[in-house]
């Protein structure tokens, strides 16, 4: 009998350590919705909602009774016919998920497959009633957001990893990221009226993220080869589709504000500001993030005029999100999920 009691006590101790299921917020307003990429083949992509006081984990799963899938890379908010939505690209599950912005309930799920082979959506841009999704299999899918159907598939370069829209054109950066050491180094230009590829021009190896400034110029991040070819920032003139400037520097993440963008310098482990009007870098860092374990991206919250920086904590632990004012003052911190990769700011 005493043996059973002993076991019962040990069992009780063991069960006390079990974490409780997360709660959900009353509403998804006045807060930050974070997309957490999760780890490859772990089916643990997730969403976090921070309401200014508390962060709620696994909110997509709580609202929909299922996980979002494997490796969620990008999400964007949009409005259509007076309703607010979020579109999510889930890379390894190879799905586009469309959810209501303020309830997170799934409205539509669009698989992106070539037969049984996953196309692996990577990045999304919205224009009018269409979503443009670049897929790692070298295509751009054009999705009609009213009928939730794929209306076209346009072939681009290898492993496209970034999208921007300038005027009536979609720019797609082809990274060739899966082809080390021979990366792709091109940009594909698609005419949005005819949905046809109109031009492909040379940029620089392993190019991914892009932003557009108020003059319509494109800033493109080339990651180099992580060895002897350094990363670089490229300035592209979309009127001529040429690279007008290449600045070699250890840049890895950009967030556009106004008249410039903040970026992360890997060597200095600090955030700097690039002025897109004067084309100058402010040589004194805006913010040092040297105390981060693993810096993993920077986002700008236009509504509250603040900057959010992600510490991915070694990639295998929950990310920490830190908010700063544009004067560099630390505002608050909250915990997100595994590999926080994107944010939407809900009012």
């Amino acid at each position: 009998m005493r043996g059973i009691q002993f076991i019962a006590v040990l069992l009780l101790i063991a069960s006390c350590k079990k974490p409780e299921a997360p709660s959900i917020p009353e509403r998804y307003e006045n807060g930050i919705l974070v997309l957490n990429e999760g780890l490859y083949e772990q089916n643990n992509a997730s969403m976090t909602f921070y309401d200014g006081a508390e962060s709620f984990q696994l909110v997509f799963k709580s609202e929909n009774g299922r996980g979002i899938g494997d490796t969620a890379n990008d999400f964007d908010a949009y409005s259509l016919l007076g309703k607010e939505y979020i579109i999510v690209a889930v890379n390894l599950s190879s799905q586009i998920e469309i959810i209501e912005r303020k309830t997170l309930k799934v409205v539509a799920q669009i698989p992106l497959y070539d037969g049984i082979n996953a196309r692996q959506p990577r990045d999304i841009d919205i224009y009018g009633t269409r979503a443009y999704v670049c897929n790692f299999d070298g295509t751009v899918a054009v999705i009609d957001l009213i009928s939730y159907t794929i209306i076209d598939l346009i072939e681009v370069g290898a492993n496209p990893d970034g999208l921007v829209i300038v005027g009536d054109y979609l720019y797609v950066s082809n990274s060739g990221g899966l082809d080390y050491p021979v990366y792709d180094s091109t940009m594909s230009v698609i005419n949005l009226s005819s949905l046809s590829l109109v031009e492909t021009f040379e940029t620089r190896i392993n190019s991914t993220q892009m932003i557009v400034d108020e003059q319509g110029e494109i800033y493109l991040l080339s990651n180099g080869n992580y060895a002897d070819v350094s990363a670089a920032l490229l300035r592209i003139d979309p009127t001529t589709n040429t690279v007008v400037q290449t600045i070699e520097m250890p840049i890895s993440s950009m967030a556009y504000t106004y008249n410039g963008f903040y970026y992360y310098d890997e060597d200095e482990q600090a955030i700097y500001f690039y002025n897109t009007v004067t084309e100058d870098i402010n040589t004194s860092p805006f913010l040092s993030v040297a105390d981060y374990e693993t810096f993993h991206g920077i986002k700008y919250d236009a509504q509250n005029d603040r900057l959010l920086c992600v510490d991915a904590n070694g990639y295998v632990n929950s990310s920490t999100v830190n908010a700063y004012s544009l004067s560099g003052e630390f505002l608050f911190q909250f915990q997100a999920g595994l590999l926080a990769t994107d944010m939407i700011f809900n009012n």
Partner: protein
Amino acid sequence: MHLKRNIFLSFCILLACQTFGQDTSLYLKPIPVFAKQDTILKLAMITATIPHYELQQAKLDELGAADVGDALKYVPGVQLRDYGGIGGIKTVSFRSLGAGHTTVQMDGNQIPNVQSGVINLSSFELFGLEKVAFSSGRAVDQRSSATAYLQANTIALNSKLASQPTKFRLGFYSNSMSINAYENGGLAQARLGKRFFIGGQFLLRLGSGTYPFYHPEEDGAVLRTRANTALFNYRWRTLLGYDHGKTKVTTSLSFNDNEQELPGAAVLFNPSNDQKLWNKDWRANLNHSFKKGKWVWQNHIDFNQNYTRYFDPYNLSLLGFIDVDYQQRNLAGGSILSKSFRFPAERIFIGSDVIASHLLSQTINGAPQRMQSNSVIGGATLFGKFKLDANLTAQFIIDRLGESVTGQERNYGKLSPFISLGYSPLKKATLRLRTFFKNTFRMPTFNDLYYNFIGNTNLLPEDANLFNLGVTYGVYKKRWTAEFSADAYYNRVTNKIIAIPTKDLFNWSMQNIGSTDIRGVEVGGLLSFAVREFRITTNTNHSFNESIDVTDPSSENYGDQIPYTPYYSSSNGFNVTWKGYGFSSNVLISGFRFSLNENNYANLLPGFVDLNSGLSKKFNLKSNELFVDLKVQNLLNKNYQVIRSFPMPGRYYQLRIKYTIKK
């Protein structure tokens, strides 16, 4: 999702998929007790002052296990890492010391793997094995070579072929599972004159292995299919033995040919799964032993060659596919000399092995070669009611890169002491107290050191200290037997070799940075009794294990339970036999675990209960024996996950038939 990361991921996948080494053999006389080996009534016969479990043939039959991994999961303290399906990799950890700290030996010969340091236990089928033994602290098999004393834990497999038949022996085996998986084998063994015996065995495994499952990340609405699981595998082994009392020689040759589809992680909504794996393994062993008086001199030469190819026909690189292969060769030779004194268990021994290994692969830098010398000196003595058992092993390693541009050479040297004490206060020795300490290590493997981009040539060995304190009590009566055992242990792992990101997501490296504190309690009991023609045996084992990360006090994970380690696990068995009929039921219970370091809800893997039940009948016809067994596996029909994203098959049925002719 850049290349380095992909390489890292495929590295992880390969770690999960490599199937190296293999073996086979037959079945033997039933010994209906599953207990610590330790339960022997005479002090002079005490062989175990350590946790030592033996699974005999009858117990293996009851468990319905097909391979060594499946059988060992019932040993208290063992956690089986099982990726599910047929042909999937299986490894075990014991008290949170992983497969890298475990030696696998067949008839005393170590099965090497310098690449990953891990042996896939699903490559060892139970058909053809007399016994599966698991010990912690030291190797127990007296045939063990010096190398076997190095590591913390030992899985010792005894093949039927290595034991001499009375005249001849013939056996057939078939196992059909309703998940579309089949195994068929045969064994033949005969004496050649007075002193020689020869035998061979063969096993064929095949099937599509497909099973339906509910994905754990869904609400259970959609029944999905675990596909890309087909397997075609055959193995054979021959053994020629010479037994002249004083001199014994055995020589054996084994071959394994495996072609299988790899069911990767069950990625939610993604059905594409088309990777394949091939293995071709050769193993040759020559063993010699010479006995004179109280002296025994044993020698062995082993050769192992493993070829593995991994192929992914669809990959989003320009090449469009991934095709990697690995070739590993090991040549080992060694000698061990022992002398016994008043009792067989009281002895001293000294021995040494030399092993040369090399590995070739596109994913491994510079064709590494390893020369190692492993030596042991040890002994056991009895004084009064005490038994003292101790040994000291030394390992020296020289690593060289075969195609080296830098010509770098690396040396390691390390000692591993072991000491244990057993005490039997009662005259009949039915109560025994035991304790042991072992300081051991695992050398960095070739994957750790040289894997493209990730490998780190500055790695040091990973250290482990093991302490155990245990008690066993047995009551042996004419009609009933009862045993009870309890162990408390403390293990500490430092300089743990783990992969960490260096600069960004695309640059990972192996580093010696982890430390783990492991504490636990194991309690177990067995009761066996006979009522008229009935024989009833029941056992229960409970393990409590707290294995916490003590790497960095400033880390969020400091004090968190390490991944895939339940606080509580339990294995239980119930068996009734009556006039050749048998009913058995086994329950394995695992508490919740975490799939990553952080102990949060997102990483929580729920506990599970794996219950099987079966009926068997044994027909004895003169020198023939027919054994038929029908089992229901995973009776509760839940697709639990041992490893995240790898759901196990639900309920399925298994029909096993064994036919033996003995003379």
